[in-house]
């Protein structure tokens, strides 16, 4: 988060920086996602902690060079724990005018702008709706350290005589930018060369070209006098182990597959594609050997229906979706509630209402998750807090669903789903298996089987087709409290409503107490849930030393037992959310007397740390 000011001498120094945020932006065809993730990988190998976020253009490809066609990738790396992809980039790498126009306002004042000046021709300027060339604008140079590089020409030079077409040559220029950054941040070039070679095994001529351009970029940065300093981000103190990078959606898919392994049961994922949840289904469709069966149903309702059907058969039924799909599934979720079958519903939140902003993030499905079903239909709801945490949250959702015989709703969001961070792969044996017991014998007098006879925790047995003697019927009509047969008896209904509610309340035994980061009592408690964890924790860290604490709700229903107590230990509670105040409302409803303050941004992005910090400082007076 802190690039040093330009050094006074022209002698280049190696500067230590604790964290840095770099954003690569260019046209959709410019390969920004590629070099972004290559740089990320190099940083991971260098031992940095990381957090990344891509910024795709809207769903359909826009014309080359247009504002709508800009694609970006932001990475935040640090020598200490990194919680978010960073509020504002310290370095912006912009490949064309449109990319500059849509991103320059995010670059922090004094930040470095590396720009492909060769792309600032008339045609491109016009597509970006620039009246004149911004690189000639003094304001730009006043506010930022501008480093214009003729990447087009330099790339062409590097590839002279390569025999590639000019279109193919142009495609290589992202590696020129990457080479420059490798020099700037002192990354070893050899692994990158290997990586390019591996990527283009089938087209060695492209491998050669990209390597050449990459090395040219590196050399150019070294020899030209454009850069005053170079930078080193030290290695972070990460828990030792084997690491990989995961996006939240990948992690969710991996978590479900891990749950199949740990429970010894099939995971059946019945879904329908929808942005930003689609990747979970896509990833899972490769996990066949892990006992994951995937099914792309004809619609969201059939997706969850297939999952419930599979659960009746003894599998762990799962379904993944986003807001509009969750709305469509609500009738089905109600059925799962009354059937009391295990089911995991993953909702990757996006901007709403309606189709809204499919590629943008939001946290506005919380109240629907809690209350969006007809009748009294309570169910456990939890939310993941980081891309890697999606793995553990998905496993936990499965564990609760099968232990308590209930549907469980897991909330993630587009920010987590698309964002990525290093993920430590658990050691063999580190994750506890959780057995699944099917009922195989009668449980009632006279050798009868009563599918709704409960244990002390109010959990009913799971008997699956193929088990002789336990044949039984389940359905969506209110059921007799023992046999599960249809019952229209009013008092039986009241009993069942209360029993189902109590069972879900009992899940609290599996909900860890709320932990507080910071002072145990004081002025301000920051209360967060879901994907804003990183921004809020980073804000709390930034406010270190003040009477400010942070608590994060992973479980929304039931909430941890000590929640009220924690909330009452601070004079003010501030709930920062990417919605219009849904957790705040819920907290008011659940803890009469607590009236939290709100900080709400609903602009499709993660919360800005500096805004939260400013707000808290205002509260502290």
């Amino acid at each position: 988060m802190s690039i040093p000011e330009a050094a006074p001498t022209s002698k280049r120094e190696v500067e230590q920086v604790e964290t840095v945020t770099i954003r690569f932006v260019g046209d959709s065809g410019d390969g920004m996602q590629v070099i972004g993730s290559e740089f990320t990988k190099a940083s991971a190998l260098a031992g940095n902690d990381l957090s990344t976020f891509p910024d795709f253009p809207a769903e359909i490809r826009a014309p080359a060079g247009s504002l709508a066609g800009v694609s970006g990738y932001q990475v935040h790396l640090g020598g200490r724990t990194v919680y978010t992809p960073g509020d504002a980039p310290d370095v912006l790498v912009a490949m064309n005018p449109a990319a500059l126009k849509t991103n320059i306002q995010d670059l922090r004042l004094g930040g470095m702008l590396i720009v492909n000046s060769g792309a600032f021709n008339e045609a491109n300027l016009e597509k970006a709706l620039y009246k004149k060339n911004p690189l000639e604008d003094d304001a730009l140079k006043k506010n930022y350290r501008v480093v214009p590089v003729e990447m087009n020409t330099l790339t062409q030079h590097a590839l002279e005589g390569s025999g590639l077409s000019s279109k193919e040559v142009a495609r290589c220029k992202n590696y020129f930018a990457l080479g420059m950054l490798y020099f700037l941040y002192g990354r070893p070039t050899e692994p990158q060369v290997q990586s390019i070679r591996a990527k283009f095994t089938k087209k060695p001529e492209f491998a050669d070209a990209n390597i050449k351009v990459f090395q040219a970029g590196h050399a150019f940065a070294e020899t030209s006098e454009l850069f005053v300093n170079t930078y080193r981000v030290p290695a972070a103190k990460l828990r030792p182990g084997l690491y990989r990078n995961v996006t939240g959606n990948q992690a969710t898919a991996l978590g479900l597959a891990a749950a199949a392994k740990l429970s010894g049961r099939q995971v059946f994922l019945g879904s329908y594609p929808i942005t930003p949840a689609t990747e979970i289904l896509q990833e899972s469709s490769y996990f066949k050997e892990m006992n994951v069966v995937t099914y792309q149903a004809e619609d969201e309702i059939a997706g969850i229906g297939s999952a419930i059907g599979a659960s009746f058969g003894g599998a762990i039924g799962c379904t993944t979706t986003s807001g509009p799909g969750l709305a469509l599934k609500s009738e089905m979720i109600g059925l799962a509630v009354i059937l009391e079958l295990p089911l995991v519903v993953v909702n990757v939140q996006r901007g709403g209402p309606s189709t809204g902003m499919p590629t943008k993030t939001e946290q506005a499905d919380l109240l629907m998750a809690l209350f969006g079903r007809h009748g009294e239909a309570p169910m456990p709801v939890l939310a993941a807090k980081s891309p890697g945490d999606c793995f553990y949250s998905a496993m936990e959702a499965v564990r609760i669903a099968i232990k308590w015989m209930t549907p469980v709703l897991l909330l993630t969001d587009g920010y987590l789903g698309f964002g990525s961070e290093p993920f430590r792969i658990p050691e063999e044996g580190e994750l506890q298996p959780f057995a699944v017991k099917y009922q195989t014998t009668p449980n009632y007098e006279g050798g009868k089987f009563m599918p709704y006879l409960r244990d002390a925790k109010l959990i009913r047995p799971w008997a699956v087709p193929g088990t002789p003697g336990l044949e039984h019927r389940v359905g969506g009509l209110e059921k007799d409290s023992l046999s599960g047969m249809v019952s229209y008896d009013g008092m039986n209904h009241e009993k069942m409503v209360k029993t189902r509610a109590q069972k879900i309340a009992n899940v609290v035994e599996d909900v860890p107490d709320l932990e507080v980061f910071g002072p145990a009592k004081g002025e301000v408690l920051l209360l967060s849930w879901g994907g804003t964890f990183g921004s809020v924790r980073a804000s709390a860290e930034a406010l270190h030393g003040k009477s400010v604490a942070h608590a994060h709700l992973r479980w929304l229903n039931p909430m941890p037992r000590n929640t009220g107590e924690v909330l009452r230990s601070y004079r003010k509670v501030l709930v920062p959310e990417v919605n219009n105040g849904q957790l705040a409302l819920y907290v008011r409803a659940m803890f009469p007397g607590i009236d939290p303050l709100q900080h709400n941004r609903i602009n499709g992005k993660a919360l800005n740390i500096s805004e939260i910090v400013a707000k808290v400082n205002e509260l502290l007076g």
Partner: protein
Amino acid sequence: MSTTNGTTAAAALPTYTKKDFESGVDPRWCPGCGDFSIINQVQKLLPSIGVARENIVFISGIGCSSRFPYYMNNYGMHTLHGRAPSFASGLKLSRPELQLWVVTGDGDALAIGGNHFIHTMRRNLDIKMLMFNNRIYGLTKGQVSPTSELGKKTKTTPYGSADYPFNPPALALGAGATFVARSVDLEGAHMGVVLKSAAEHRGSTFVEIYQNCPVFNDGAYTFLTEKAVKAEAQLRMEEGKPLLFGKDNRKGIRFNSQSAELEVVTLGEKGAVEKDVLVHNPRRDDPTIAFMLANLSNRPGFPTPIGIFRAVKLPTCDDLNWKVINSAKAKHGDVSLRKFLSSADTWTVE
């Protein structure tokens, strides 16, 4: 017992009787409802199909017809209106060794459930779907259904319906069903034979059963079932036999290649002889002739076909799926969790 996926241990089957398939709960349909006759045939059939009782699952939606699973002594799910095929699809894909029956009504299957219906048919999932067609919403007491006739007066169409009805077998064929048949509640023996074939078919199986609802749409099928008209009104399709009907089988269905249409001929009249009559072959790959027969019931002057329109063997969706799954399993063997999670670019922090 089979609790894992794969195949059920082939233990010796007990000798079942009809009673073994009765849940002991008395069916709650109105006196005279055609549903009684259907459940009777199903319960009579099941002892003979060689499947263990616990491996059979009945899944229904919502409607009078959909109460069916409660009366069967198998595993059963009474689900949501129109959605039964979706549960069945998931269960079948998850546990292909189970035998799945979906029981549904004309509203359940074709109104709210139309999408799941056509997709189950096209996928050729091995699911047997019995649709009780009473051409009315029974459970909600008498509204127009997608099989109600044009002009039909019901509680929601007091001046007559302005909607053309579906022809359910034609729709199933259009969607790609591999087994399509029709029977009638009052024709118990005929229904028994059709159900037996349905039980034996592997793939998407659709049986439309004309069912009288004496309370809200009484007499919907008297045109077909009354003694006096039956012979002329019913065309009983039998594999390998000419499509004859009428008193003493004097009439037949002939394909007129001039007009490219089916026509009714009377044997012995205008030179029509039996060998002109179309021989019924439900096993043609191309569904066209089945479709043509299905459409007969829409056309004035033609009899209503009952029996099997189409029965074609094609690899099922569940089989194709498990082929892929099993080959992935065979290829990878038992993968440890750590190995699985590590299959990506990794690095070590020390």
